[in-house]
């Protein structure tokens, strides 16, 4: 096991290639109907957003409640490019990432001066402003929503059904995870954490606090933008401002909190579990919000670092015990 780990460390690409192969095979082995593929695509999209949110919230410690607005920017960049230019996902995805990144810059600026709940309020306002702007803009088809956004075609094969679209959403998710792992495991990720823990101390170590806050916001905005574009093209390709409200934002935050704030797997674990549990409790719609509220409260009370932190603690405790144990012998 340790040797395997060592090889993965040596060749980071290898792990992702293995994961890619496994994820490619999952539908044919486990899935029995198209809905599971649809759900899998949604999980992929949620993972991208949550992984991005984990960068800015979990690692850099900047509270943002406006991320869903950037997600909407990604979706509507894709939607409008399709509507007015007829662009496909291959063009709308990079464009959405780019434009979302620019919005990330705008969202980062308040973080230079504001902290905690004040920053949350500022970003909340930003996110809601974006949604209302879309809702009232004829250019964005306001409350009619943009419909029939096309699905990509590869070698003449349209990826227009949920089972096929999974093969679009999944690789995009893997690439996003790869980037998030790369950043968070490097010195940049450590700098993010240092900024979260103590900006003054971080600056004394030569870490440019403003630059890293900006980086965190822009990076995670790019994740949200990419996810938004993938969502816009998800069959049947319909986007509506109703899907970008504070409730969705809370769901994304719940994913990160539940998975483990500041844990490298945090957003990913959270996105998978929350999306699946949400689906399993669909027939209990009367109690769903209640269950979710309770989950968040209990997670924060009894598992403040989420599932990721729980697993972490277990492994680290063991490692520490073996080390000190060896010493006492």
């Amino acid at each position, binding site marked *: 096991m340790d040797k395997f780990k060592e090889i993965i460390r040596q060749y980071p690409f290898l792990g992702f290639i293995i994961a890619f192969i496994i994820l490619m095979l999952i539908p044919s082995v486990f899935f029995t109907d198209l809905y599971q593929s649809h*759900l899998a695509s949604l999980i992929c999209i949620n993972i991208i957003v949550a992984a991005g949110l984990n960068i800015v919230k979990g690692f850099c410690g900047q509270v943002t409640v406006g991320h869903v607005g950037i997600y909407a920017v990604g979706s509507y960049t894709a939607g409008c490019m399709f509507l007015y230019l007829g662009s496909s996902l291959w063009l709308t995805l990079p464009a959405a990432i780019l434009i979302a990144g620019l919005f990330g810059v705008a969202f980062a600026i308040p973080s230079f001066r504001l902290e905690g709940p004040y920053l949350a309020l500022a970003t909340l306002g930003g996110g809601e402003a974006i949604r209302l702007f879309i*809702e*009232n803009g004829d250019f964005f088809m306001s*409350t*009619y929503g943009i*419909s029939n956004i096309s699905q990509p075609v590869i070698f003449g094969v349209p990826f227009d059904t949920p089972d096929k679209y999974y093969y679009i959403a999944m690789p995009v998710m893997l690439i996003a995870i790869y980037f998030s792992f790369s950043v968070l495991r490097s010195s940049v990720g450590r700098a993010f954490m240092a900024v979260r823990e103590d900006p003054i101390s971080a600056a004394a170590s030569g870490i440019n606090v403003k630059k890293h806050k900006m980086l965190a916001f822009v990076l995670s905005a790019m994740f949200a933008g990419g996810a938004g574009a993938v969502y816009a093209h998800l069959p049947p*390709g319909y*986007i509506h401002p109703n899907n970008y409200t504070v409730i969705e934002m809370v769901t994304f935050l719940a994913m990160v909190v539940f998975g483990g704030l500041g844990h490298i797997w945090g957003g990913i674990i959270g996105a998978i579990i929350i999306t699946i549990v949400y689906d399993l409790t669909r027939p209990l*719609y009367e109690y769903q919000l209640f269950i979710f509220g309770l989950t968040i409260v209990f997670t924060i009370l009894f598992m403040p670092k989420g599932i990721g932190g729980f697993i972490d603690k277990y492994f680290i405790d063991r490692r520490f015990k073996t080390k000190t144990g060896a010493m006492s012998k």
Partner: protein
Amino acid sequence: MKKINIIFSSLLLAASLLVTSIAQAKDIKIGVSFRMLSDVGYKHGELIQDTVAEWNSSGGINGKKVDLILYNDECKSEKGVANATKLAYQDNVHVIIGSSCSSVTLPMVPVITKAKVPQIIPHSTSSKITLQGSEWIFRVPVSSRFYKIVQAKFTAENAGTKIAHIYVPDQASMDFSKSMIAYVKDEYGVDPVYEAQAGEKETDFRSYLLKAKATNPDALVCSGLVDETVRCLVQSYEVGIPKSVARVANSVASKVEVPTNAGKAAVGVSYAAAFAASDTRPIAKKFVKHIKSRYGVVPGHDFSQMEDLLTMLKPALEKAEKRFSGDLASDRKAVRDSIAGITNFTGLASGPISFCAAGTPECRDGNRTPVMIEYTKGGKNWKTKVAGTVTFNASAGL
């Protein structure tokens, strides 16, 4: 290690639950995706559940039990699409009922068309839904293309063409005002004397109303959701717009909250709907009494459309069931053809409902008879009267 085992095994359990949702071919399955947010929303859900339970206790569909699968879509398209996909591919239903909001039904149509599942709409009115040309979609309520004509025509003929519009940024509300404006412009060559779009969740319309008052309109259109409509109507008297100015609201005015909360301000407000609680036909009286005693509310057209939908669906399912082969795809097609064969259904709706085989709006906007209703008394014991009904031909308003 034990803790880790527990985590993994529970994850596995969740995954296997996901995988093993086995369809039971014997029953007839009806899937519902529905906006169940408010008290009334839940009551619509209860109405379906109660009705299907009645079917089952009286022998079901030709002896077959009906399985009802009810999901909430919270009026969000993302959830509506997920529900439709789940109902079509995982729950393997024969027919889908849904949804309440046009913005949710709209993206559901391509999903159910691809999956080849018939869907029958209880509430959504947007004309765009049937314009997509799907052969699998049926609409029980009156399409917005009829509503907007009847309202514009009624207002222009009875009040005058100097019309002031205040609407909120909600799809149905904007749709209503904009198409009314377009109709009056086309037919009478007159622009509205005042037009304003309020902000989302705005509750103080007095500044708009004062400006509207200054133009001396013949009619004032307050187009919004329940709260906004009530406030706009009440505030129109506060700013001193005289009683002689006709008040017009969109189909939201059919909801009981409007006359209850608006009180005296509701008097004289006219709106178009598919059903009037003041309808004097015996069938309507019986229905109103039934809903009042069971659910404690006076039914608006949301209730009557759901009731009509279920009433027409039962014989259609019975007819289709005789042709069931056990193969889901062909069974669904049988249900679709059976619903398409419904002609001149007379229920609670103010006119007959007819479908036909083609996937065109002419065929699938089955209800073409909006009724004009006017409040004669506001407050808790509100009263309405039927101001008139109009039956359009199938291609009107396209």
